[in-house]
């Protein structure tokens, strides 16, 4: 019985971690202030 509880805890923690990670996502950030280029850049 104790082994079953231990296994269930591990499983629940794995699901909790992955769900939290995906729910948080990543911030979108801001649009770059750099313009669409009409001159040839010297380097990347």
């Amino acid at each position, binding site marked *: 019985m104790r082994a079953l509880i231990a296994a269930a805890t*591990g499983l629940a923690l794995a699901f909790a971690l992955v769900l939290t990670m*995906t729910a948080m996502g*990543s911030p979108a950030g801001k*649009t770059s202030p750099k313009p669409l280029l*009409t001159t040839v*850049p010297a380097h990347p």
Partner: protein
Amino acid sequence: MRRKASLVLLALAVFFTALSPLLRWYAFPRLAKIPANQYQDMVLEAKDATLLDYGTMKAKKVPKVTIVQTLKGNVQAADKVEKTYGKDVVVWDSLSYVQGPDGKMVSKLPERYIFDAHSQEPVHATGEMVDDDPVKREGIEFKWPFLTEKRDYVYFDAQTRTSAPIHYKGTQNFRGLKVYYFEETVPWTKVTFPKVMPVKGITPESVAKTGTTRWYTTVRKFWVEPVTGAPVHGEEIHKEELRGGTLLGGRDKVTAFSGHVKMREDYIEHTVALVKSNRTLVLLLTSYLPWGFLALGILLLALSLYLEARSRRPADPEPSESSAPEPVTA
């Protein structure tokens, strides 16, 4: 004590074993996405190209034609589209600016490309356009999806405003990277004149009145790194002609542009380095961590079983006190 330790190890074993498929098939498709605020520029060159001189209306050889391509993620526009679409969306405002050897503008083609940040499926929303003409894209443009497959993809052509298959032609090694090579031939197609013409005073409408039409064909080649879906090299054998009408002075056709367009060397090096680092990040979620966690889970489970087995083994008998030997008497 051993019992407790084996239970903790069992919990950890299940945790890491479960994390392995969850990361690969649940987290990866949701976490891997193209950032909405990406900004990227690219320089392509066509050396020894043929270009139309609009002063004489004759084609002439030029040492170099340069194409500057910029992609800029528009976060505000993406937020607006996301509200109706309900998924992560990327809006790319792009400009392909073509410059002659004298530095003057030859043509420019602005675009707005809207797509799903994860799958790269096109998203149709207000503002999607090519050269201010509303379009409904099918397929991909500029970039392939993550985990690119060895198959044909539908690719959108901005000149013709149509989509057609771009064919998978094999796997190659490009500067130490395994890449998939894709190729597409766009046959001669009548296309519209750009909204902004290279000569002041000439408009697409005024050219249309002369009866002259613009035709285009290209052989498009891409070398795509399959884990990230990013092209590390691109080439086009691009030809444009003006045909018929009074503008050509009795000639059937004149070459407007002809050249073999290739990515500039420093941009190839930069792109390869960037793709190599991004590739590691994608592989972390699709391969390194899932396989690592699975191995760790199995190891922890084995250790847990070992400790459990030892805790159940009956204890060794206590060593009996040895009696001192009795003195021998004769």
